[in-house]
């Protein structure tokens, strides 16, 4: 495959990954790494490096909008970021000691988990009846936001602050090990443990992902996992794709499409796990 063709193929794959990721709310990382490794047969380290760069770009772009709309709870985000960044630093440093097979296995398992989360996703909007816990009150983590759909201002309290720190540390470690944003772990933690309204959870998670990813990326940069030849088309492609995806998403909220994608993610998860054991299913483009 010629060089320019490779760049083009990578770019287009990244655009597709960005579109799918933004429709599913899964984030680019979890989609782009399997695409790069299974389809384009790239080394997983370079895939992770390219992924983390695109994660920073898409999350910061989205966060800019959410922060402006006052949907993100910056205090909760910053508080939890103590744990996520620590986890990300730990995870990113550990990558050097893990064989590629292990990375594939962990990735496959995280994909399985994501598919399960996608399948379970039914959310109600109201959070009546939650009292802030002591730490949340001390730190004044509670807040309110303006719900564009109902036109009301919704106030909410925050609870479960201590367990959330633990969950966020774990989410950070996975971000560091796999080069993903871990939004798939952050949102449920805020949703279930802290009982935040789902809109606040997703927008705060977006706000946090950039910080976590930057911590991971700083280590990746020095370790040489960020290959410019891969990272450039991927970063540009995923950003474009998620922009396009966010435009077409409102028209695509049908449950059937989600179910189809859950199946696809499951298949990809299985492939990643097989690859960990050295079994390659032989499809995809070979560029060398």
């Amino acid at each position, binding site marked *: 495959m010629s060089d320019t063709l490779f760049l083009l193929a990578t770019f287009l794959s990244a655009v597709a990954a960005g579109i799918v990721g933004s429709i599913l709310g899964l984030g680019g990382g979890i989609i782009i790494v399997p695409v790069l490794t299974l389809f384009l047969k790239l080394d997983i380290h370079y895939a992770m490096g390219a992924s983390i760069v695109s994660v*920073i770009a898409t999350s910061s772009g989205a966060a800019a909008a959410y922060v402006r709309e006052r949907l993100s709870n910056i205090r909760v985000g*910053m508080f939890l970021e103590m744990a996520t960044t620590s986890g990300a630093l730990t995870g990113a440093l550990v990558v050097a000691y893990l064989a590629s097979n292990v990375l594939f296995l962990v990735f496959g398992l995280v994909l399985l988990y994501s598919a399960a989360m996608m399948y379970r996703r039914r959310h109600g909007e109201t959070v009546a009846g939650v009292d802030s816990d002591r730490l949340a009150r001390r730190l004044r983590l*509670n807040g309110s936001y303006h719900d564009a759909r109902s036109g009301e201002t919704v106030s909410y309290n925050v609870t479960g602050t201590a367990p959330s720190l633990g969950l966020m540390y774990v989410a950070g470690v996975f971000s560091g090990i796999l080069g993903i944003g871990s939004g798939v772990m952050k949102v449920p933690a805020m949703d279930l443990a802290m009982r935040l309204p789902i809109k606040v959870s997703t927008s705060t998670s977006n706000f946090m992902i950039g910080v976590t990813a930057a911590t991971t*990326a700083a*280590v990746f940069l020095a*370790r040489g996992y960020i290959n410019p030849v891969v990272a450039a088309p991927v970063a540009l492609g995923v950003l474009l794709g998620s922009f396009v995806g966010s435009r077409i998403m409102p028209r695509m909220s049908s449950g059937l499409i989600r179910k189809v994608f859950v199946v696809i993610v499951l298949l990809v998860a299985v492939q990643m796990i097989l690859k960990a054991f050295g079994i390659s299913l032989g499809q995809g483009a070979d560029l060398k």
Partner: protein
Amino acid sequence: MNVPNTQPTGRGKIFGKELEIVISTLLRAGVLLSMAIIAVGLALLVRSTSVSGTGERLDMAGLLSYGPGAPPFPATIPAVLRGAVALDPLAVILLGAAVLVLTPVLRVAVSLAAFVLERDYIFAAITLFVLMVMALSLVVGGAA
């Protein structure tokens, strides 16, 4: 004191504008700038794969294979800067990546300043902790 806090960031203004707007603008500017740099680097890269004149053709297959030892592109911020000035496409792209990585760092620094200005010292400490972890990642990883 369980007073509903309608502005989770506090009521601070920084540089005369609301904190949220500053952060939001910063994030957007950082992403756009880094993407522009990356695009320039990519253009240089494409050019270098086809130009048969003074530039050497880039060995892309070699660049894509992963192995032990030092990678064939700069891995520290000083090296990236040197290469970018020399218009090495790989270094330019990595410069864009570095700008992107630094955007959230800057955002956390702005939050720190805001909390200090509001005299919210608990959150200033929390934010400082986050900033320290990020700085540590730059140093421990070896990039800085």
